[in-house]
């Protein structure tokens, strides 16, 4: 089973460039999330979606945009990359309802130079 798949896995960007991270899940989950992980700061929520066609801001949304046109896909965009956006990005999904397990992808390593 594929679970949650993120592409690309690694990317180096120049300051000011744009890019899109793609997340795909094959578990028919309602909720999807984008987190960033930085040393000593845990996992911080960037944006999330509670269903197809919906998006909402998390803790650290500035500089990012998202879209969920299809239930299985959640895209994270950086319109003008900054060095502060160098991080490891994780997509996650879970079924609807309470207390359900969140399933994470394997991460996307982004470096902005």
């Amino acid at each position, binding site marked *: 089973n594929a679970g*949650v798949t993120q592409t690309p896995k690694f990317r180096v960007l120049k300051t000011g460039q744009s890019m899109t991270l793609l997340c795909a899940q094959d578990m028919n989950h309602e*909720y999807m*999330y984008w987190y960033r992980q930085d040393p*000593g*700061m*845990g*996992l*911080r*929520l960037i944006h*999330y979606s*509670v269903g197809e066609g919906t998006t909402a801001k*998390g803790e650290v949304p500035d500089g990012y945009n998202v879209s969920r046109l299809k239930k299985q896909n959640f895209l994270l965009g950086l319109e003008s990359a900054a060095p502060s956006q160098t991080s490891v990005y*994780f997509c*996650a999904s879970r079924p*609807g*309802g*309470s*207390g359900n*397990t*969140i399933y*994470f*992808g*394997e*991460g996307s390593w982004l470096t902005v130079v």
Partner: protein
Amino acid sequence: QQQVKQSPQSLIVQKGGISIINCAYENTAFDYFPWYQQFPGKGPALLIAIRPDVSEKKEGRFTISFNKSAKQFSLHIMDSQPGDSATYFCAASKDTSGSRLTFGEGTQLTVNP
């Protein structure tokens, strides 16, 4: 505002020893407390979770202890093994549909042979 504080940041334990990681939360509305385990190069995966109607939950060598009055919970790994070396994250949320997890900063555990 960090709503879930985790300690220690790093922990070194000898094989066979007990590993203890602590978390404290601020929001009294939280009522779902999972622990995630993350190996290098991988996404976090659910290890064990507890709800506040019980003070302890055990799964194999892993135990969560929960103290509602102190707003604290901890992960105990008995008979720690080198294969347990990973980063551990505590998290908390309201146990309702659509709720979002707030993660601690993470603890890097190393179990020496």
